[in-house]
């Protein structure tokens, strides 16, 4: 970066000297100097950042959907609350960390608003309801691995892989419950 700035300054100074040397043609020379493209500071990995915002948004929506499913399952089966409470707590942690990652420009709703139960179809049988949650966890884990591969930030990729690992363990635990 420092080298880049120094180079830029040198180029501009050299251009200025050329302009002064060409004094008789002041008008055109100055016009040329004014047109001199001053290199703007690099925009950074703007594309990468945009890409990760989309990935993060997808992960946030998925966490909200899972929390909604848990809420709907608990509404239909209050007896499962002790079993499922630690699972929802971990998803809330995921959601917090994903939301803390930065602003989400596509946000139409408050990402931390409590999920609304009822949108999901919950089986009347408790065991079948748990199996449905396990299936949703398994699908979410696969989607987060895919997101991990799409992420450009390395730290963010590790967080997504870790979320996937938690969800896969959730699925396995619920399946064997």
């Amino acid at each position, binding site marked *: 970066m420092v080298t880049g700035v120094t180079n830029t300054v040198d180029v501009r100074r050299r251009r200025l000297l050329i302009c002064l040397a060409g004094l008789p043609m002041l008008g055109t020379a100055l016009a040329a100097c004014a047109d001199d493209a001053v290199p703007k500071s690099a925009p950074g990995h703007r594309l990468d950042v945009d890409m990760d915002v989309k990935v993060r948004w997808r992960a946030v929506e998925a966490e909200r959907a899972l929390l909604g499913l848990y809420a709907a399952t608990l509404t239909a089966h209050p007896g499962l609350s002790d079993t499922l409470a*630690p*699972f929802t*707590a*971990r998803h809330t*942690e*995921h959601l917090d*960390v994903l939301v*803390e990652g930065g602003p989400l420009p596509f946000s139409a709703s408050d990402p931390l608003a409590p999920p609304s139960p009822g949108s999901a179809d919950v089986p009347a049988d408790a065991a079948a309801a748990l199996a449905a949650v396990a299936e949703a966890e398994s699908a979410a*884990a696969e989607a987060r*691995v895919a997101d*991990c*591969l799409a992420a450009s930030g*390395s*730290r963010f*990729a*590790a*967080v*997504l*892989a*870790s*979320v*996937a*690992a*938690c969800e*896969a*363990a*959730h699925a*396995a*635990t619920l399946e*064997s419950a």
Partner: protein
Amino acid sequence: MNAEDELTAAQAALAGEHACVYGYGVVGAHLSDDAETAARALQAHRDRRDDLAALIRAGGGEPEASAPTYELPQPVTDAASASKLAVLMETRLAALYADLVGAAQSGELREFAAQALVAASVARGRWGGEPVAFPGLSGRPGTPGTQASPTPQTPSDTETPESPQ
């Protein structure tokens, strides 16, 4: 992250797999009911060890060999202590693979590491480890992680909930 970090993280994960291959041999010897589960786990870690060694070699690195012997972090005398060792090994391995996900320069290595992190987390649960919100990451992500030791040779480096006190 650069190629050097990538190789360091890959070698650390490989050392973790070497340790798991050794450890599951011990675990299997103490499980009569779950001997088959331990045998499957042992094979899974052998396969992953070989795949990771191949990836390291493909990247121009020389895969590190296993240590001649490993010191167990705690004595394994029965099924309960064997399962406890399995949980500890998978917990540490998850941390090494989380590091590798972050350090990987190629999509292939990142995918391998992510799948291995998932597998370690599932295996940890199968051996009775309580699920955690962020397997492989110490505490909440965003805070600097601690490097978990792959080998059971350093019992002092047991910053995990399952570690013996």
